[in-house]
């Protein structure tokens, strides 16, 4: 492993606390509580070690990173190290003094989530009344501060038909980028899969809307969009390959090859409180386990795309087959691919069950069936 390249990006999950309760949250089902979070000094040391290791970009995320009052100090520290700083936020806690302070600290970019094109649908998905209006206000503050904005829209069966309106919203908010992110099914989203899985017809309409908007908005809005795994024929290069480009430090300091890696049982993750980031990146069992191509089974092992998609997503393979070394079922060459498509077709065709909202101490089921909001 002497030729191991340094990671490009660090996802710093400062906290799992969040005022929103999105049923597809990428945080684990067992959320870390505030008392266990790394303190300011520990995060600054993580940033020092990340920069020294060769990390170029740091994404401050959560949970909702703005619940941490030391966010500005951490952004300033990262900017001082020459790191490109990105804030991934729900926006509902941002006010003008906060945005001004973050810009002054050297923040390079803001990525703001929206749950739908409008309230009340957006508020229902977020489990937070008034959240959409607060997000619109936050976007205006971000732009007024001269910060570039990316809108991130997680899409699923309950908002995918509004994608054109979501694109229009991103333009109206002055975003230069829009990420249209189909839900990925592990953790909370796996639990809510039947409430989130789109039909193939929905997906095809959405893909056509993106294709048309990319032409219409060339030079105005860049749209990032990837066909979701359940309807794909080839897997995506999840994280650019396990342990190749990316590392994630969770709120208590555990270092993960991706934010969902803890859904795979049988892996142990080391902490920045015990070892340096460089040692964990190079030597820890969790990072080495699926790095490169040695771990691959057939059909991956002899596939000419093995260093393009790196075998796809380990978390998805584990979630659907119980084996983390299985070929990602998103691949048409996987023996589990047909079963995955069957699940998608069956769940998307049925009525959407109520959401199980993301909560500390376990999910809370939506009190009413969702029909009233639409």
């Amino acid at each position, binding site marked *: 492993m002497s030729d191991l*390249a*340094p990671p*490009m*990006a660090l996802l710093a999950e400062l906290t799992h606390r969040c005022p929103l309760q999105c049923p597809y949250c990428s945080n684990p089902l067992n959320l870390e509580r505030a008392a266990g979070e790394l303190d300011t000094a520990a995060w600054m040391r993580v940033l020092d070690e990340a920069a*020294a*290791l*060769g990390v*170029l*970009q740091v994404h401050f995320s959560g949970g909702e990173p703005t619940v941490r009052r030391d966010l500005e100090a951490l952004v300033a520290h990262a900017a001082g190290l*020459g790191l*490109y700083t*990105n804030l991934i936020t729900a926006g509902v806690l941002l006010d003008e003094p906060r945005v001004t302070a973050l810009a002054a600290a050297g923040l*390079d*970019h803001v*990525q703001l989530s929206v749950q739908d094109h409008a309230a009340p649908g957006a508020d229902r998905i977020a489990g937070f009344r008034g959240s959409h209006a607060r997000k619109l206000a936050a976007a205006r503050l971000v732009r007024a501060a*001269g*910060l*570039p904005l*990316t809108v991130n829209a997680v899409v699923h069966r309950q908002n995918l038909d509004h994608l054109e309106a979501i694109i229009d919203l991103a*333009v*109206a908010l*002055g975003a*230069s*980028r829009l*990420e249209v992110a189909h839900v990925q099914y592990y953790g909370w989203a796996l639990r809510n899969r039947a409430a989130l899985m789109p039909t193939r017809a929905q997906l095809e309409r959405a893909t056509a809307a993106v294709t048309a908007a990319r032409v219409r908005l*060339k*030079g*105005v*809005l*860049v749209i*990032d969009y990837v066909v979701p795994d359940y309807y794909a024929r080839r897997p995506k290069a999840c994280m650019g390959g396990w342990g190749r480009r990316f590392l994630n430090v969770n709120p208590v300091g555990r270092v993960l090859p991706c934010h969902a890696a803890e859904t795979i049982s049988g892996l142990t993750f080391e902490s920045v409180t015990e070892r340096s980031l460089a040692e964990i990146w190079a030597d820890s069992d969790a990072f080495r386990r699926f790095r490169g191509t040695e771990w691959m089974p057939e059909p991956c092992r002899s596939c000419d795309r093995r260093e393009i998609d790196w075998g796809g997503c380990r978390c998805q393979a584990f979630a659907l087959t119980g084996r983390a070394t299985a070929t990602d079922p998103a691949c048409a060459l996987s023996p589990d691919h047909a079963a995955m498509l069957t699940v998608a077709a069956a769940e998307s065709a049925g009525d959407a069950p109520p959401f199980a909202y993301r909560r500390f101490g376990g999910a809370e089921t939506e009190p009413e069936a969702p029909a009233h909001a639409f």
Partner: protein
Amino acid sequence: MSAPVEIGETSVPRLPRHVKLRFDAARGAWVVLAPERVLVPDEIALEIVRRCDGVTTVGTIVDQLAAKYGAARDEVAHDVVEMLQDLADKGVIAA
């Protein structure tokens, strides 16, 4: 909202606030940092991007590179405009 940028020889390209060009010691290479993107420019691309200073016109950049590489100005102009237009469409270059 922003308007599309059309690159021509009179354009004055620059890196927008959210795009940074810096030398990365860990890789021994120049990198362009943008939201969710890291570009590692090749030698020619780096020569172009480094001249995007908000002062120099595309025409002057073409003159400089044609002289530096002893290449036909027409060909250099075509390549420079094409590359900058692509970067502008991706939001990496403003003008």
